[in-house]
């Protein structure tokens, strides 16, 4: 038996921090950072007698997220208490939603492993509060509790177990991230923990019932999610192949060792004793409230994609890639507005810039330069001030030290040689040094021209104007 004999079943629980100004149940700022315990008040510190009041924006953002993922919005909803003890949970219960989530029964479309469109069903989206943070105390021993994050609003999106591979799981998560970014409900920064995913994985042989699933936590990048799923699939298959049984448990992914570890202390019985929070009254959303939000939803990736192919003549594939990230898409639109050259902008973003992102394991939102800077670079190529070869160097430089491309090329001395005399000098030098190529060309081998131009570019370290080189070589060769 091998891995290919098993079918993999994956479901995701995705937590996204909402980008509201204040916390879900109190008026403290949600801003990331800040000295420990300074973004706190009696409510989020769970002082005796303090009471929660729901932030209206949290409801609005959750409804937005629900509408953007094709969910039904509940007319009747409520908040429930999930009771458990942990030092980062000051009330010893989390206010969440149990049996009446705000949004239910949605779906998003992703590309499956064969490249076909696939619907991934969303079971529910509900609102809840984030916990605080435990810091390791490097001096005095013990741990230290910081409650700045306690009460930051989250939406939890629970998928049905519709995903069949790590790649699909990644595509699904990227899709959600992109949607939430588009509708501006979350900034979805995985590195800051504002987007987190718990992954349920099970394996079974086709035609048999689903296997027992394990839940993995603590993955904080797309890469670690893919790795964790791959690891867990292999682990489960190994266990089964060795005649063992999978235990339903929660696992912690350790990125350093590339392994999962059992998380829950066996002695801690889990029984959350959900019940409706008596401090908070019911949520009843009228039709016109929901319609108003639906009407004002920002443009979603699907519609942008449509526009990119019809208006800008981009290929389906390129349009898809560009719109996958709102940041990338905004960069595209911003740059194009200035330089009015959609194909060039798309090319730069999808080739050189994407390659560098990959190499650096960066997400598009971490691109350090602006749309203006990108557009300027493209205009410099159009004007002939620099060659595309120099353009590539400018992009690399923009990642390191983002500033006006004109300044970059001045500083670096990368301005294209467009002076006819200088170009001629180079052309003559190269022709002299390569008599073989000259005769090849004359014998009808057109390729020889390319070689000669290449040599001239090398000679000028990419700074010669390629069109002028071409023209001048032809003139000389045809003499």
């Amino acid at each position: 038996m091998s891995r290919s004999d098993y079918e993999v079943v994956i479901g995701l629980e995705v937590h996204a921090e909402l980008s509201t100004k204040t916390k879900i149940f109190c008026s403290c700022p949600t801003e990331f950072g800040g000295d420990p315990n300074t973004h706190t008040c009696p409510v989020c510190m769970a002082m005796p007698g303090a009471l929660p009041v729901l932030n209206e924006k949290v409801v609005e953002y959750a409804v937005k997220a629900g509408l953007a993922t094709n969910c039904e919005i509940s007319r009747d909803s409520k908040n429930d208490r999930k009771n458990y003890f942990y030092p980062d949970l000051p009330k010893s219960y989390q206010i969440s939603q149990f049996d009446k989530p705000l949004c239910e029964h949605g779906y998003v479309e992703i590309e499956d492993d064969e490249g076909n469109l696939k619907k991934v069903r969303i079971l529910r989206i509900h609102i809840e509060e984030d916990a605080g943070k435990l810091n390791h105390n490097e001096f005095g021993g013990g741990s230290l509790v910081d409650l700045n994050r306690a009460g930051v609003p989250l939406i939890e999106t629970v998928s049905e177990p519709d995903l069949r591979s790590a790649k699909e799981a990644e595509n699904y998560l990227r899709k959600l991230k992109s949607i939430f970014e588009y509708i501006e409900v979350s900034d979805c920064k995985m590195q800051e923990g504002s987007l987190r995913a718990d992954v349920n994985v099970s394996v079974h042989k086709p035609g048999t019932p689903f296997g027992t699933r394990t839940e993995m936590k603590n993955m904080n990048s797309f890469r670690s999610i893919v790795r964790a799923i791959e690891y867990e699939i292999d682990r489960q298959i190994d266990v089964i192949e060795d005649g063992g049984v999978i235990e339903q448990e929660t696992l912690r992914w350790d990125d350093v060792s590339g392994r999962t570890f059992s998380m829950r202390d066996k002695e801690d019985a889990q029984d959350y004793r959900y019940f409706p929070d008596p401090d908070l009254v019911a949520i009843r959303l009228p039709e016109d409230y929901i319609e108003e939000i639906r009407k004002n939803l920002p443009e979603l990736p699907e519609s942008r994609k449509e526009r990119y192919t019809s208006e800008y003549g981009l290929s389906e594939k390129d349009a898809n890639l560009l719109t996958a990230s709102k940041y990338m898409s905004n960069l595209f639109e911003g740059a194009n507005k200035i330089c009015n050259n959609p194909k060039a902008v798309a090319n730069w973003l999808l080739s050189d810039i994407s390659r560098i992102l990959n190499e650096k394991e960066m997400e598009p939102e971490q691109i350090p330069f602006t749309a203006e800077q990108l557009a300027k670079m493209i205009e410099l190529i159009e004007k002939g001030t620099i060659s595309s070869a120099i353009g590539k160097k400018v992009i690399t430089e923009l990642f390191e030290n983002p500033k006006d491309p004109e300044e970059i090329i001045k500083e670096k001395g990368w301005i294209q040689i467009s002076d006819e005399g200088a170009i001629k000098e180079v052309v003559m030098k190269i022709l002299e040094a390569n008599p073989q190529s000259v005769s090849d060309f004359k014998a009808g081998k057109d390729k020889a021209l390319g070689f000669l131009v290449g040599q001239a570019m090398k000679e000028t370290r990419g700074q010669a104007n390629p069109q002028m080189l071409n023209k001048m070589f032809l003139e000389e060769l045809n003499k």
Partner: protein
Amino acid sequence: MNITELTVHELKDKLASKELTVSEITKAYVDRINEKESEVGAFVTTYCDEAISKAKEIEEKVNSGEIKGELAGIPIGIKDNINVKGAKTTCSSKMLENFVSPYDATVTEKLNAENLINLGKLNMDEFAMGGSTEHSAFHNTQNPWNLNCVPGGSSGGSAAAVAAGMVPWALGSDTGGSIRQPASFCGVVGLKPTYGLVSRYGLVAFASSLDQIGPITKDVEDCAMLLNIITGHDEKDTTSENIEKVDYTKVLKNDVKGLRIGVPKEFYAEGINEEVKAKLEEAIAKYKELGAEVEEFSLDVAKYSLASYYIIACAEASSNLGRFDGIRYGYRTENYTNLRELFRNSRSEGFGEEVKRRIMLGTYVLSSGYYDAYYKKAQQVRTLVRSEFNKAFEKYDVIITPTSPVVAFETGSKSNNPLEMYLADICTVSVNIAGLPGISIPCGVDSNGMPVGMQIIGNRFEESTILNAAYTYEQATKFRDNYKPEFKGGAE
């Protein structure tokens, strides 16, 4: 003139006529505390020195015209589960023995806005769980009518302090009778407002869907005055109702002609002390005499209410008291090496037995497998109780019952059997379950001279109706003119 025997409306008049000064009043109460507190034990913390300097400050400001307000400088006592910034809020628990509140409850802000003077924080059953104040982690409170008896509870300190004249009035809280029952035991007036009339922000939660803060006073007019101060919509409490404010002193008409009174016979059946029953019958006869229309009817909800009450209250409490974990505030055990021991030992050592019992019960009824049989059913019973009361209020303006089946009992005589103790709440809990207003006023004393309380229940937000009914009876019978606590018994 004995200042501490005056009601607040009398004090107010004497302040207005300059017969008395703010300092004189505060001084009189401080003296009374010094005289009686050792016998009664109503306080957890007193603020006598602070009160005297505060009185001076207010007096100057009143004289200079900087503050107006006819109640400025009147002292008050506050149950020790209501937060006052910078003061301890102990809930009479070892858990919060040293807890200094970082903020004011909404009602505290309202008292401050009137420039009332806080004389101290009043003793209670730990976390408001109990009906005798014997469950205070610090000390018992004695009933001023008989020092060998309990003052009732959980607001026993508040009721005893008012009865003993150590405060002119006080705030209590009522989850299942915790204002009305001690008021009844101590021969004073106690009102539990309609759920949502008074903000709960800053009241340490026992059972969130039942808790209400309310006044404990010497007479009905004072009750109306204090209710005026503490009511009002609060954005910090989503269960606080946004309704127009009523001036409750204006509704005291001294007239019950045509008032339709329902007398639910189940509340006068088994378990009700005969003398209590007899006093209630006299009171009802009085109402007839005053022109009210009285009718007996059946309201068979008391037992269901009581069961439902203990399920809901304990379930909510088990969750509300989770925050006492020894991390951010409150008692922390010395006996721990890891987090679990820190949690468990802090909670086990910090909570008293009754609190632990209720946390256990509440955890049980919410736990998987029992939720539907208990918690869910109890919430359905709640719907039933509400609809039964709704039906009753179609026919009657008020419902009259005993406040408690018994009068104040001897300290130490009852605390061994929890179920028996819970059954004693039979007359009061329905009111909380249905979220209605209820007032307890004295309607005589039994053969041992212990006060008997009458409960008048109104429809939601009908505080005006029950206050007028209570006022009219009070004016006709003048309980305070005829009976006074005598501080009988006590140290042999």
